[in-house]
């Protein structure tokens, strides 16, 4: 895989060097230059859209800020290229932060609209702040000069190409590092991400700011490339064009943005020539008809599924035949393309090709984990940094009240967890066990009461801070990062072991490489401990259910917690799986980790817990050693339900059929 990308890189490098020599036409060189510049921006946009899964409609605005920073710096102060470009990056990143800090408190459509509003403000400001931007008149900027030599189109092309390559390498490194893993994790399961100590908000903001920096770089290069900038360029359509390019090319790839950039840059030229457009439309119909027949013949798709896209393509061809002036309808065609891509080409061209290749050659993309051999169970453990005094209560939930509307999910519950024990938490469905978990890990802020952990109050802290403080958890509904491999899931749990910053990652420093190496060995060791070595490179969503539960435990262990919360780890597991699980839980305790265990399998809870607390109706009804709790009349009643078990209790099961009628 590594060698493949190296070869690809060399080919790309040669292609870039050779391009102006083979095609010396300045028009095409300029077009290629624009593609390279867009690609830089799209790498950044892909971080936001593809990796963190947020929709930004503000990237044209950011692009404009980059352009105008460079333009105004040159126009007003005569600042040279070498200073203007970094300044553009910094200014755009700063604007990105200004937008991201408030805006990323919301997601989805909210964020889309807010970024759209931001883009609109920027366009207005560029238009209105004439003292800086010259307003609608625009700014003229010549090609940069180095040591008195003014670059020509070809030389500038090489500058843009070099910077694109740098951006590509930097982005690639970032996305392969713990930062990239954090981005993917926060998208897959924000709640689990926070509970792994990776603050979703922080990393979203970081991704956005980084992306803005790239937009700034692209913007400044664009200024020098065009030699003239005016406010109208940075409009809403450009933003949509960028998004279209990212999706059409293929998200979460580097080749996708380059391809997408090429498509959207050439699109206007294609659309300006009606003859060419007609030919494309006719070809599309031909391909569509052949593909449809083939799909129908092979019974891959039904007539109904094919009808819409086929009709649309034919309608498009008819439309192109009727059309006289294509320029006027440019945006309609553009809109239709967007619809087409959203519905039929979600993974983009690159994704489509990759899926095709994977079908032909199923194992071609499977990587081998070279760290499996270095795994050693003893390396899975790291002395917890948060070890409190032995024998003392590690955690104390004090009179916790959690109210949702009229429901008191937890009603003045006291819970003390002694260090080094396994503490069972049981109760009927809806009795408040999971709510308790969520209170302890900071997902819910209790309505009243406090939670102390290791002597400090943690209620009110963010889930990420609580996780870093030493409380790890698993989830009742498995919350793995589905599209990431088992190893990567555990690596997200190990995120806190990285001290490297962005610069370390971008420059691939020794410190970063050492940390990554150590983390990978530990991840492999943890996977060995939970018995998933063979599945380390499998995507989490493809693991069997029981293995997913074990992987969740492994990921939580990555945090080196002093307290581990397991929420129904045995649910849905088969008998042999449960045996394995019990052994794993025991081993975890042996390594000095305190556990809270929510479980419905009574034999599991009763056999391994030191203390058991029983919740019912949001209240603690019993607590003590397993045997005591099992004998407790209140517990039996709660489990059997009011009337039926009111007098007979558990005994009724083994007793002869009850003929006691239910009082009506």
């Amino acid at each position, binding site marked *: 895989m590594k060698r493949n990308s190296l070869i690809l890189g060399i080919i790309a490098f040669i292609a870039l060097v050779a391009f102006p020599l083979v095609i010396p036409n300045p028009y095409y060189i300029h077009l290629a230059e624009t593609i390279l510049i867009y690609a830089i921006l799209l790498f950044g946009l892909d971080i936001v859209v593809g990796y963190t*899964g947020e929709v930004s409609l503000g990237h044209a605005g950011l692009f404009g800020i980059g352009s105008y920073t460079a333009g105004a710096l040159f126009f007003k102060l005569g600042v040279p290229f070498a200073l203007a470009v970094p300044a553009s990056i910094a200014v755009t990143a700063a604007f990105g932060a200004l937008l991201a800090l408030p805006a990323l408190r919301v997601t989805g*459509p909210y964020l889309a609209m807010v970024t759209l509003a*931001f883009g*609109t403000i920027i366009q207005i400001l560029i238009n209105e702040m004439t003292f800086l931007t010259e307003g609608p008149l625009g700014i003229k900027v010549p090609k940069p000069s180095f040591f008195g030599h003014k670059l020509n189109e070809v030389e500038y092309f090489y500058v843009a190409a070099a910077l694109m390559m740098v951006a590509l390498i930097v982005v690639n490194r970032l996305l392969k590092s713990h930062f990239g893993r954090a981005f993917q994790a926060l998208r897959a399961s924000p709640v689990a991400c926070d509970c792994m100590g990776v603050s979703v908000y922080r990393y979203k903001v970081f991704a956005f700011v980084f992306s803005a920096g790239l937009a700034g770089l692209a913007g400044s290069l664009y200024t020098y490339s065009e030699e003239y900038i005016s406010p109208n360029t940075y409009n809403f359509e450009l933003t949509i064009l960028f998004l279209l390019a990212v999706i059409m090319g293929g998200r979460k790839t580097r080749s996708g943005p380059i391809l997408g950039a090429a498509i959207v840059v050439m699109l206007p030229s294609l659309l300006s020539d009606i003859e060419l457009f007609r030919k494309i439309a006719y070809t599309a119909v031909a391909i569509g008809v052949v593909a449809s027949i083939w799909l129908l013949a092979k019974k891959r798709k039904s007539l109904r599924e094919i009808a819409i896209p086929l009709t649309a393509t034919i309608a498009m061809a008819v439309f192109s035949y009727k059309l006289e002036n294509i320029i006027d309808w440019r945006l309609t065609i553009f*809109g239709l393309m967007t619809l087409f891509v959203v519905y039929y080409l979600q993974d983009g061209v690159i994704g489509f090709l990759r899926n095709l290749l994977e079908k032909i050659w199923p194992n071609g993309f499977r990587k081998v984990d070279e760290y499996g051999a270095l795994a050693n169970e003893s390396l899975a453990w790291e002395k917890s940094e948060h070890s409190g005094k032995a024998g003392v209560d590690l955690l104390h939930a004090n009179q916790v009240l959690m109210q949702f509307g009229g429901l008191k999910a937890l009603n003045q519950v006291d819970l003390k967890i002694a260090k080094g024990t396994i503490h069972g938490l049981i109760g009927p469905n809806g009795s408040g066990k999971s709510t308790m978990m969520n209170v302890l890990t900071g997902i819910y802020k209790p309505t009243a009461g406090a939670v102390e952990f290791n002597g400090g109050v943690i209620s009110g802290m963010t889930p990420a801070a609580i996780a870093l403080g030493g409380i790890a958890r698993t989830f009742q509904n498995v919350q793995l990062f589905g599209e990431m491999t088992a190893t990567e899931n555990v690596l997200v749990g190990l995120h806190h072991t990285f001290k490297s910053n962005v610069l370390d990652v971008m420059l691939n420093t020794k410190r970063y490489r050492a940390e990554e190496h150590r983390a990978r060995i530990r991840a492999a060791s943890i996977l060995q401990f939970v018995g998933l070595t063979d599945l380390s490179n499998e995507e989490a969503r493809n693991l069997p259910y029981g293995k997913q539960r074990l992987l969740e435990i492994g990921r939580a262990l990555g945090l080196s917690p002093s307290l581990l919360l397991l929420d129904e780890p045995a649910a849905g597991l088969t008998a042999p799986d449960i045996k394995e699980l019990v052994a794993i839980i025991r081993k975890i305790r042996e390594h000095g980790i305190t556990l809270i265990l929510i479980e419905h399998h009574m034999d599991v809870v009763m056999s391994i817990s030191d203390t058991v607390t029983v919740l019912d109706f949001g209240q603690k009804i019993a607590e003590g050693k397993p045997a005591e709790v099992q004998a407790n009349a209140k517990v039996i009643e709660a489990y059997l339900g009011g009337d039926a078990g009111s007098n007979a209790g558990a005994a009724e099961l083994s007793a002869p059929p009850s003929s006691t009628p239910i009082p009506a």
Partner: protein
Amino acid sequence: MDIFLQLTFSGIALGMIYAVIAFGYQLTFATSGTLNFGQGEALMLGALVGLSLAGGVMGGPYINYWLMIPLVMLFGALQGVVVERIGVRPSIKTKNEFGWIMSTIALAIIFKNVAENIWGKDDLTFPSPVSSTPFQIFGANVQIMQVIVVLGALAMMLAVELFNRKSIYGKAVVATANDSDAAGLMGINTGQVVTFSYALSSATAAFAGVLVAPLTLTGATMGTALGLKAFAVAIIGGLTSGVGAIVGGLILGIAETLTGYYISTGYKEVPGLLLLLLVLAIKPSGLFGKTTIKKV
């Protein structure tokens, strides 16, 4: 002072338009968790269709302003159904948020471009259905059309609210907004409810379009900024609160006319959008919105 008062009155009229559009966002958001990024374009189409019916641009006028309104709303409803069927439904089925955001934007671009091709790129004047001679309140000039805008907007929202509270179908809409799955269990066709909410939402926007058109210029580009600012209003007021939409609309409308006069017309869009960022930073659920609790 008179000028200030006068600006406030225009601000109120403008704000009520924002409130009606924001109300339209709320309708679809409540039932489906989605919204039409082309809400502004629905307004624009409403205004242009209205102008073609009641004005001279298409060889008319065919009917008078007041009779035109129900026709335009019907048109708006149909347009809303198209948006829901093409842009939203497929993405709701696959739970693809990115999908409906992009496709409603794509449809908005198409609508705008089609409108440009039909009605041209230049702004047109919408003949005022009432006398444009202003009357005086506390020494400030107020146009009759402005009063109509305020009353019309309030009437529209009130009508929808009454429908939701009193009729069984309205209750079905509220139930779908509450819990779509549970509504399905009651035999309510929640897909139809979503389609209906889109129809209603676009009809509302089209109605707002013909209300605002006589006060401003009418053209293919009139909707985008209105739609965006109405969204700001929806967020400022909270996406779940009708009162919030009105308060948010008034705040924004007045802020905007004041900025336009005292600072510069070029900047008049800025306060709303800044206010939007500010509200997000302080209270993301909006001034009147409820904070929701996520289930794990």
